[in-house]
Structure formats: C-alpha cells, structure tokens
C-alpha cells in the first residue's frame, strides 16, 4: 500500500480554509513534487503531515499507521523527516554538532549513563560521531565539520540541513524549498545530490518547490495545489499541459516556469 496516505484532510485557521479535503497517495520510493502558487496551502499541508498543525477533519496514515493526531516528535520518530526552507540550523554550533543532534533518537543511552560519562555513554557517542562523520562525507562537508554554521554560505547550510534531516534515518523526507536561494549551478548540483540520496538510501521524497525547471527535472510525479485544494496530479509532462494548472499560475506571477 501507499507509504503516505491523506484522506480528505482539511486545515483551517481562524475560519480561513488553508487546505480543503486533500486526498493524496505517495508511494514508497517516489520522488513526488508538491507545487502551487503562493497561498495554495502547500505549507499547511506539510505542517499537517508533520503534525505541527492538527487537521480539522480527514486522516493521515504513514506506512499504514494513522498519524493524524500524533505529536510532531512522534511522527518524526515514525520515519518522516523534513528540511526547512530557511534552514533553521543552530548558527553558533559547528556543522558536526548540528548533524549530531539529528542522531538523538538513534544513539540512545540513559541519563545515568550520561552523568557517568565513561562507559556506555562514551561508546554510544563514538558510534554517533562515526555516523555523523559518514553523513558529512556523503555531502562533502567533512572539511567543514568544525566550522560554526553562521559563517557558511547559504548553499552549504542547506546541505548541512539535509545531512541533519538524514541523520534521523527517515523513510520519507519532506523537502521544503530545497533549491531556494541557490544559484543555477548550485541548484543543478543539489538536484543530482537529492536524486542520488533518494536512490541510494531508499528514501521517499516529497518536495515543495517553486522553481519549476528544477521540479520538472526532479520529480517523477507532481501534485498541484491551488487555493487549498489539489487540482491536478501527474507526470511533469501531464502537468505542464494541464489547463487548470496553467490557469492557476497565470493568476500568480511569482513562479518561474
């Protein structure tokens, strides 16, 4: 069955409907795009999936388990990770420490062990550091391991954010505007990286992105939202020719197609 299943999900804030009766299925192994003009409800949909907002109605299931009313940290623990549009890294901490934070749930030891320090805690910490180092290697961040994030260019910060999200070992990753703020060369490199990681690590991706060019190359299937509802779903070719999609975007000039 589908990895992620949304059924009639509605989200509203103070009487305004942000998402209206959204139904969608994301299959395991997919790279799915989520697009739509500003205000279409993409962020609210993502927030509903990650548990930050609670849908007014409808249900969300992940790996066939309902996750609709779960707190966000439990949903993350179930295997849904995410990156952030504005990166949200800890600026005063090093690249390594940021990525290490993502390994919280996978390298576990108790408070007593932490207080004692040597023994179990030290062993588990060493394992965690090894895994973090491997992640940095995979993203070509190893030489920057000890650098504080605040000094790094935005494109590199995005890679750190991605590495950190992967540290959670998600089955599905929600990428929130992964290409925004990048130059064209950086964007192309990022697309290659993202596709490679999806393939190599067997992670399903749901990508929210405004950059049409990138989206068309990255996603196998695309879901289009407009004014809170899902108006189309299909391959990039199908979406490009879809009247409804074109009309929705003609009303909004922010996106580059």
């Amino acid at each position, binding site marked *: 069955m589908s990895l992620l299943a949304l059924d009639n999900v509605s989200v509203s804030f103070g009487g305004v409907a942000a998402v209206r009766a959204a139904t969608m299925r994301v299959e395991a192994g997919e790279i799915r795009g989520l697009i739509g003009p500003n205000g279409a409800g993409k962020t609210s949909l993502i927030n509903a999936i990650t548990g930050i907002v609670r849908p007014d109605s409808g249900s969300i299931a992940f790996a066939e388990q309902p996750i609709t009313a779960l707190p966000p*940290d439990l949903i993350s623990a179930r295997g849904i990770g995410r990156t952030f549009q504005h990166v949200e890294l800890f600026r005063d901490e090093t690249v390594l420490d940021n990525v290490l934070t993502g390994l919280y749930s996978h390298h576990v030891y108790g408070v007593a062990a932490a207080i004692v320090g040597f023994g179990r805690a030290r062993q588990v910490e060493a394992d965690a550091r090894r895994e973090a180092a491997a992640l940095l290697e995979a993203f070509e961040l190893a030489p920057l391991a000890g650098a504080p994030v605040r000094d790094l260019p935005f494109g590199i910060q995005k890679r750190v954010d991605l590495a950190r999200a992967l540290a959670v070992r998600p089955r599905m990753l929600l990428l929130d505007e992964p290409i925004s703020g990048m130059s064209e060369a950086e964007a192309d490199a990022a697309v290659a990286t993202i596709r490679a990681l999806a393939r190599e690590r067997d992670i399903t991706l749901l990508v929210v992105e405004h950059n049409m060019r990138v989206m068309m190359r990255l996603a196998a299937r695309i879901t289009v939202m407009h004014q809170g509802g899902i108006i189309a779903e299909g391959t990039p070719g199908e979406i490009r020719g879809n009247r409804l999609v074109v009309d929705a975007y003609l009303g909004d000039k922010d996106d580059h197609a």
Partner: protein
Amino acid sequence: MRLSHVLIAIAAAPAVALPLFGSSYQIYLAELILINVVAAIGLNLLTGNCGQISLCHASLMAIGAYTTALLTTRFAVTYALALPAGIVVTTLLGASLGYPARRLSGLYLALVTLGFLEVVSIVIEEFPDLTGGVRGLKLAKLEFAGWPLNAGALYYFVLGVTVLAIRAGWGLQHSRYGRAFDTVRQSVIVAQALAIPPARTKLLAFSIAAAFAGLAGGLFTAVVGFIDPTEFDISASLRQITFIAVGGLGSVWGSVVGAVVLTLLPETLRGAKEYSDVVYGVILLGALVLAPKGIVGSLALLLGRFHGGKARLP
C-alpha cells in the same frame, strides 16, 4: 583540552590544600562557594542550555535544605541518608514544574515559577512547628553514618561532592541530553523534526535542576547549621541567575566561574546584604545588557575567532 586540564589543576590546588593553611572562616566561605557552584550548575542546565526561565531555584534549594535538616534534627536520621532523601524530595517537587513548562514559555513560565516560589515561602512561614517559621531552623550536630562531621572532614566532603557535581553536569551537557536541551531552547519545531520530545526534555531539565538544587540545599544544611528562610527568597534566585548570566549561560565552567567570582565579590566589599544586593543587581544588569555571553562565553568567542575553531562552550 590539555591546557584546560592544567588550568583546572592549578585552580584546584589551593582548594584542596585549604584546610591546611586557611582560617575557619575561609574554609566556611569556600564551602559556601562550592554550594553555590552546585546550585548554579543545575540552574545553568535548565536555563542556559534548555532555555527555561526559573525564578524559584532558591526555593528548591530551600526544600532540599529543610528536608535534610528536618530528617537529621527531628527524626535523627543520619546525614548519609538525609542528604539523598533531600535530593529525591526536591527532584520530585521540581519535576512538577515540568508540567506547566509543556505549554508555557518565557514570561508565563517565569510567572509559574514565581508562584511556586511564593507558595514555598508561605508554606515555610505557616508551618512553624515543622519549619521553624520565620525564625529559622537550628540544626543538631551532624554525623555521617556514625562518624561526626568535623570541620576538615566536612570541607573535603563538600569539595568531593562538588567535583562530582561538576563532572555530572559536564557529562550531561556533552551528552545527547545536552544537545536535546540546546535544541529545545533554540527551536521547538526543529526539536520535533529531529524526534526530540520537547515536553519530556523540559521535564528532564527541571528535574535535573531540582536535583542539583536539592543537593546544594542539603550541603547548606551541613555547612551552615541554621536555616534562615529569608536566604531563599527571590533575591537569592536572582543571585543564582547572576552567577550563570555572568559566568556564561549553557556552560558548566561558566557556572563554576560565575559562582566563584560572584560569591567572593561581596566578601571583598564587606558590607551588609543591601550593598551586596545592589552590587549583584548592577552586575546582573550590566551582564545582560553588555555581555550577554558571560565570562566563559565571551572567552570562547574570542578564542574561537582566534583560531576559527570549535564554537561549543566547555
């Protein structure tokens, strides 16, 4: 970290040798400093690392002090048992603050802790048969599992416990829990995205802070021999906050430096409590406005800039 090991050894040497050449007042003062260090470490983990404002840390210390005092004085329990009992009681009560911390933050949480402080003060006052009320509680001579605690033994006991507390605080700060604390402080949403449970993390932080406060309170009982409830009022809580704000938020060594420097400072001023309050207030205000990173934090920043290296506080 080898240089810092040397520095620690240099700083620790007089501390270890003190009973040999120091006056009994100096030993007493050193014990008070050590007690403040213990309390500050707990508060720093809660406020500096986990970002939760607590105005009632002094009340938690009072709970530890009174529990240990009552067990030894009223119920003739040996200090060896009364001290851990005090820690347990304080930890349980302090953990209760984790509940409002689930939904409240910043200002509102500060108000809850203020309410807690007031309630503890009132309970102390209104049950004088138990607590001695406003007149305080005088303590019996303490013995540790049969051995009387004389001046030298007590000092080394307090010193040893403090060293263990520093080690424990350091261990926690550099563990996954320290990272969880820092994450929750900076962004609850990021914490949730990384499968770090914010509510449980805050609860842990409050519990740990309470445990350190309870320990500090229990040590206070042994060192001071008389509990004056006005020692644990809001200005006492503020003094502890000054320790960590000036020493360095989020750093165990910041707690140590802050507590040592700011406990010694009023001694050099040699004045009444009011003068020390003014000095504390001014230093705190100055630190908040001018040096938000504290002594240790500012040093770390300077050193970091110097060789572009690690940004994590020791």
